[in-house]
């Protein structure tokens, strides 16, 4: 399942949705707002999504992961709106019988989410300027 929300992300609540008596491994990834990007001091970030297609594309990514790794449960939530340093912008969690697939699937999902979902972020800098962040493949890696 994937969702887009302007509410604070609650990782503990989310991981519980992946419980399965046959799952021996759980991995999660969280993207946190950090105070620096490419030498600029960042105060906060603003996320914008085009929700209808972000959800469609997100569901495709999760389905791809589940096709590749049987018995996988996967869940993803992406924040939108204004986020402060330290806040969680994206949460990806997976559970599966063994840890190999859990690590691979979690990595696959976050990588694809970062390059395929119509989501954009604007950095607000300490010097008063702001700027849209270019995509991963075009430049910086987050």
């Amino acid at each position, binding site marked *: 399942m994937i969702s887009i929300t302007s509410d604070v992300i609650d990782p503990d609540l989310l991981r519980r949705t992946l419980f399965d008596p046959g799952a021996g491994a759980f991995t999660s990834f969280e*993207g946190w707002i950090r105070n620096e990007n490419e030498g600029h001091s960042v105060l906060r970030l603003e*996320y*914008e*999504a*085009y929700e*209808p*297609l*972000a959800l*469609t*594309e997100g569901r495709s990514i999760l389905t791809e992961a589940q096709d590749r790794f049987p018995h996988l449960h996967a869940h993803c939530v*992406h924040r939108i709106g204004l986020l402060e340093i330290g806040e969680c*912008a*994206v949460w990806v969690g997976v559970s599966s019988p063994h840890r190999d697939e859990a690590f691979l699937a979690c990595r696959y999902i*976050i990588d694809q*989410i*970062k*390059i*395929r*979902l*119509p*989501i*954009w*972020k*604007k950095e607000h800098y300490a010097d008063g300027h702001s700027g*849209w*962040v*270019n*995509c*991963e*493949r*075009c430049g910086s890696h*987050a």
Partner: protein
Amino acid sequence: MKTITVRYFAVFREHAGLDEETLTLDAQSAVDVFVATRDRHGSAEPSGHCKVAINDVMADWDSPVNDGDTVLLFPPVAGG
């Protein structure tokens, strides 16, 4: 000539100064719409890093556009 509704996102919306507009264009494919709006709003972004959707479905730059279509122009994405 076709009547195309164009929707702008993120930096494209800032360049255009509006969320969407309806244009009458001589466009065969999505990239024609991209080039026409780029010229119109003075953006310098190449299409290579951008994405496009037609009527809420992800499309390719050479996907055909039809009269009445809504074309969504996505600048380079940066989720996560």
